[in-house]
């Protein structure tokens, strides 16, 4: 039962519970009209302490398509946070008005802290460079849809693996499935943190600096953008931002059924000449995100 639970990191739900979410999301995709009123009278609060377009729109679209309503702020300057209110007090107050809340915060662990004080289900929509569990659900759903399985896969993760929260969450989540091999492709400065690799065996992963050298063995390539906001120095950001570029030419080295995923937004890391390649699924991935969030909201609210 997911009713009244929080989702702070992917490991909060069992593999079975996640499977239940996928199945509900499949049903919603098949017959969206059956679900257009299930959240009538329910209110979703979106607490975005950091700018976001995609994730916030995805959650808002999900709630509106279920017949519910949304309230919230999209930057802390427009809320009582700017007056110095603590995260705990904010979530307690929001719990008096809304039925469910979504939080994005630049500080790592902020949603976990909030969940300890929250009387309504809380969903982590990204905390700094740490976790982004609903993006992970989106990613898992996309993989399941295109590869028909979540086991026996070689997945390359490329780009900013140090601050890329989508990568951290996805590795944690996929490592619970059988025979998953990770290929971490990044410059030295943006390597995957040791607290992630410490939980893997040496057979489960390899690290490399070469995207082209890895392409041929991958079932999935997960590209990420180098995020300007995660750097303290502009110089460091400029040095690394164009380190990896994927284009149609490089894709000739990839398997014919390898899929290319990206949490979006992209900057330069995937060339637009890739967009018509059938293997590029990043826009479909965004659509999956809305459906899985619809399923998640329904399960946490306990509506059918």
């Amino acid at each position, binding site marked *: 039962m997911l009713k009244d639970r929080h989702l702070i990191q992917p490991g909060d739900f069992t593999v079975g519970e996640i499977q239940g979410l996928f199945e509900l999301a499949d049903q919603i995709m098949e017959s969206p009209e059956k679900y257009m009123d299930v959240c009538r009278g329910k209110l979703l609060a979106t607490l975005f302490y950091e700018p976001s377009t995609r994730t916030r729109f995805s959650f808002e679209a999900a709630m509106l398509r279920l017949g519910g309503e949304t309230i919230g702020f999209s930057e802390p300057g427009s809320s009582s946070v700017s007056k110095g209110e603590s995260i705990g007090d904010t979530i307690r107050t929001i719990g008096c008005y809304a039925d469910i809340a979504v939080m994005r915060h630049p500080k*790592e*662990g902020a949603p*976990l802290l909030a969940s300890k004080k929250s009387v309504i289900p809380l969903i982590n929509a990204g905390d700094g460079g740490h976790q982004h569990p609903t993006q992970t659900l989106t990613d898992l759903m996309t993989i399941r849809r295109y590869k028909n399985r979540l086991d026996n896969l070689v997945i390359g993760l490329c780009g900013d693996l140090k601050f890329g929260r989508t990568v951290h969450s996805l590795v944690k989540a996929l490592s619970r499935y059988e025979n998953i091999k990770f290929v971490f492709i990044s410059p030295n400065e943006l390597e995957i943190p040791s607290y992630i690799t410490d939980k893997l065996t040496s057979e489960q992963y390899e690290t490399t600096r070469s995207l082209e050298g890895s392409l041929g063995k991958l079932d999935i390539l997960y590209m990420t953008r180098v995020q300007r906001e995660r750097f303290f120095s502009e110089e460091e950001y400029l040095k690394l931002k164009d380190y990896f570029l994927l284009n149609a030419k490089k894709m000739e080295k990839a398997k014919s059924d390898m899929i290319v995923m990206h949490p979006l937004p992209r900057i330069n890391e995937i060339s637009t000449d890739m967009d018509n390649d059938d293997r590029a699924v990043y826009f479909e991935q965004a659509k999956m995100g809305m459906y899985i969030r619809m399923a998640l909201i329904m399960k946490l609210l306990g509506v059918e």
Partner: protein
Amino acid sequence: MIKIDSIKKGIVIDHIKPGCGHTIFKDLGLHKVGYTVALIKNIPSIKMGKKDLIKIENEIDLDMTMLGLLDPNLTVNIVENGKITEKIKLKLPEKIKGILKCKNPRCVSTIENITDIEFTLIDPENKIYTCEYCDTPVKA
């Protein structure tokens, strides 16, 4: 050898690494108490070569988490009527609360007043714990 009387009722902290007795003595606040306490340094030891030892002639509540964190190889002996009635072998605590601080500038604990952060042991050999909020490794 200097003679220090056995205690009747109290606690003996044994197997302290030589040179570390003073730190533990101070961390336990024993330099400020009114009852009988003794810090003995550099005692010859078959197992350790040399060791420090602390004797406390009083019943006090020892913070075993703190002691285990300071040195997981310590032994705490409980003494009643001049005899050891219980030997407690310390180990590194699996979880600790309110002792360590997270050093990650991106952690929420840098902007909120959180006094009870829980840290979980991930590497006993190097005494590495991770912050419950941001998973950053911290050396204890």
